[in-house]
């Protein structure tokens, strides 16, 4: 236990915590994305999947609490590291050239905040259903299509998925570096895996609001 506390006290330990919780969330999002695109098959298969999940009853709270814990640790570490970075930088430069950082790496913090806002909205929208125009328990496919009928909502989903993609792109590459996985023979795979998972997960999710905006979702 002392080792864990000691790790958390250090900036490297907080980054390790972020990378491990991030990986857990990436794993969840892969399964979540695969189940969501069932909507392109038909609404009924999505309903079946929903029924299967609800079949676990109160046991469903175990993965839910694990995911919630991962999000809390991820955000706590991000918040503390941001504060340390701001304090460490002190004054700002009149001119500061940043040739190496990318759009994705520079938007990790605000992009993360946007993703948090999105998660809260998304849970109220499709899980709790209180900001849904016509929420019916169990009719998952229908709820999804009806919820996407509002253009501003679909657009918000699309923008959030672009933010998620940027977060993935830098975050997944960053996981390798933080966990010490860096070897010239394998390094090109790090970027490749980050790009692949970004296209798969963020692209998969984004296809749903994009299809809704184009009028293809029914």
């Amino acid at each position: 236990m002392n080792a864990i506390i000691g790790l958390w006290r250090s900036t490297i330990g907080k980054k390790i915590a972020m990378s491990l919780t991030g990986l857990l969330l990436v794993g969840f999002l892969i399964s979540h994305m695969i189940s969501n695109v069932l909507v392109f098959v038909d609404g009924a298969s999505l309903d079946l999947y929903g029924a299967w999940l609800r079949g676990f009853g109160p046991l469903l709270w175990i993965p839910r609490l694990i995911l919630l814990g991962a999000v809390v640790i991820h955000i706590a570490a991000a918040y503390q590291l941001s504060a340390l970075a701001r304090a460490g930088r002190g004054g700002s430069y009149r001119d500061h050239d940043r040739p190496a950082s990318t759009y994705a790496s520079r938007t990790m913090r605000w992009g993360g905040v946007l993703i948090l806002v999105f998660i809260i909205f998304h849970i109220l929208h499709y899980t709790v259903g209180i900001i849904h125009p016509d929420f019916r328990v169990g009719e998952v496919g229908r709820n999804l299509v009806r919820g996407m009928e509002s253009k501003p909502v679909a657009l918000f989903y699309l923008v959030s998925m672009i933010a998620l993609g940027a977060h993935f792109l830098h975050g997944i590459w960053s996981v390798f570096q933080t966990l010490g996985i860096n070897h010239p023979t394998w390094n090109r795979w790090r970027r490749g895996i980050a790009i692949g998972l970004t296209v798969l997960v963020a692209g998969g999710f984004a296809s749903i609001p994009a299809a809704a905006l184009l009028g293809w979702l029914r």
Partner: protein
Amino acid sequence: MSTMRLTLKVWRQASPEAKGEFRTYPVEADEHMSFLEMLDVVNEGLIAAGEEPIAFDHDCREGICGSCGMMINGKAHGPRAATTACQLHMRSFKDGDHILIEPFRASAFPVIRDLVVDRSSFDRIIQAGGYVSVGTGAAPDGNAILVPKEMAERAMDAAQCIGCGACVAACPNASAMLFTAAKVSHLAMLPQGQPERHRRVLGMVEQMDSEGFGGCTNFAECEAACPKQISIENIARMNRDFLKASLREREETGAGAVSN
């Protein structure tokens, strides 16, 4: 010889507490001058006019001591890759250029005067573990400890670090990870560094954090700014060693307890 007329905008700050400001100086420079020689010319003019010369750190002027270092047009050590400010020549600029010169900025590098910053935080990181213990007495036999050539070269790549602080200056988080990682790595890759390997990384990282540097978010700006082209591979190695050392550390059970 070709001369060029330049306009410098330089950060002037009389003391650590003073509120600094940018001041503009015109200068006529030769393209063969080093950047520091160009500043010397400005200072001669200032001294002749009875003004305070611009304070900047310098020592060897051949790119190996790590004393010089300033932000030149937003880049640590200026526009040339793998080049310290002292090895930067005015041929990297052209007639009529405006050059903005600022000190390295970080909370752990407080400004002492003008472009001179206090980098003793780096010294304290080294003191926290950047050494190997050796037996005194008769000199050991040469080559008694075998070091594979490629490991010696990779250790040497890390040992190239001159501790100038450009990594901290360039990092948006003002993180000292590249410096610390270079120092941890060059000893971790050699047999002589093994006995203290885990204690070293724990001690140096703890000191690094307590000096008030920010954390690493893998922007890789440090690697781009480093005049010695130290790779962020060293940061990954330090992360690996730090994690391993943290998990394997044992509770102190008495005098002489070691960390691994």
